[in-house]
């Protein structure tokens, strides 16, 4: 599908980044991520040998209500992404790729799937702003906002590194998004797949029916 050599090199680089990002975590040298044979040929998705526990995260949803991630998504196929709405490129692309792939699922499976977008920029991404943005992509997507330190800790617990919004030298706000989408199994509630930034609509279209069943893509 991606035959260009530069694309393959970029994917390799992405895979390397994934590995190094996880290696720098708090797991004391224990390899958290290993690329399965399957994903070696198809690097947009990485099967995690040791699944991540779903973050114990309670934040505010787009309606202003409390949302307990573990409780609300228990036993549900769930995709988790950390991003921000003032993001021109990767955040909307990632969410739109998932939205398009989701539409290829049978209606019942679409309703089972939980896609959770947690903002990395809670000061700008109020519940209303998040809601407006997500409605433009897929009204079933869930948007969460709240305390940045809480969000950062949750991201870190699933091997994703994010930083607070800062001001650049021109006084413009600069935010950071996560570089992977984590897929959680409905069978175990464990985060068992990483989708990288290069994951396309096709990658998600192939993967979602498997994720719905908690299987490897």
């Amino acid at each position: 599908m991606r035959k260009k050599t530069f694309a393959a090199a970029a994917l390799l680089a992405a895979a390397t980044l994934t590995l190094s990002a996880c290696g720098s975590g708090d797991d004391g040298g224990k390899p958290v991520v290993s690329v399965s044979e399957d994903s070696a040929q198809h690097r947009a998705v990485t099967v995690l040998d040791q699944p991540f526990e779903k973050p114990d995260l309670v934040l505010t949803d787009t309606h202003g209500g409390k949302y307990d991630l573990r409780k609300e998504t228990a036993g549900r196929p769930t995709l988790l992404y950390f991003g921000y709405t003032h993001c021109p490129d990767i955040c909307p692309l990632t969410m739109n790729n998932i939205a398009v792939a989701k539409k290829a699922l049978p209606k019942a499976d679409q309703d089972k799937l939980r896609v959770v977008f947690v903002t990395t920029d809670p000061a700008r991404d109020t519940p209303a702003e998040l809601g407006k943005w997500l409605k433009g992509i897929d009204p079933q997507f869930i948007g969460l906002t709240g305390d940045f330190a809480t969000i950062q800790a949750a991201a870190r617990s699933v091997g994703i590194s994010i930083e607070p919004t800062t001001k650049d030298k021109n006084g413009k706000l600069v935010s950071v998004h996560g570089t992977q989408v984590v897929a959680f199994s409905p069978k175990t509630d464990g985060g068992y797949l990483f989708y990288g930034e290069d994951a396309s609509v096709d990658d998600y279209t192939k993967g979602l029916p498997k994720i719905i069943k908690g299987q490897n893509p």
Partner: protein
Amino acid sequence: MRRPAAAAALLAGAVAASALLTGCGGTASGATSGSGSASGSGSGGKPELSVSGAYMPQPVSDSMAAGFLVITNKGGAKDELTSVTSPDAGDVTVHETAGGAMREVSRLAVPAHGRLVFRSGGNHLMFDRLAHKPVQGRTVTVKLHFAASGDLTVEMPVKPATYNPATGH
């Protein structure tokens, strides 16, 4: 691979070059292909720029959008992209991306016999405060300002939000 586009670029180049002399910038005629070029006389000592593969993924709202293109320099001298403007946006800035963080940059080099590539996940143009939400099938006018070659105008087509130039859909 892009012969018709190259021909269009040459044509557009002639238009752009003549328009440049009048100081009002050229308009790339290849609106759908997003190609255009600005060049000097074509001698080895000058940058010879052309633009290909321009597109904007349809954004979520009118507040922000990204744009991508490739600037090719066939000339023997480097040039620099110094700024980007658009009549369709309040502000256009140039960003590099690294590891989930983007950084605004003021100038980017277009090396002699080289390319400056804007692609998803890497360098991108960021459009703020668009006049209207760009929708698929329309174009956004983008003016690229170069240190040596002057201005180059590109009609950037708006593609689906999930458009992938590698697959063309």
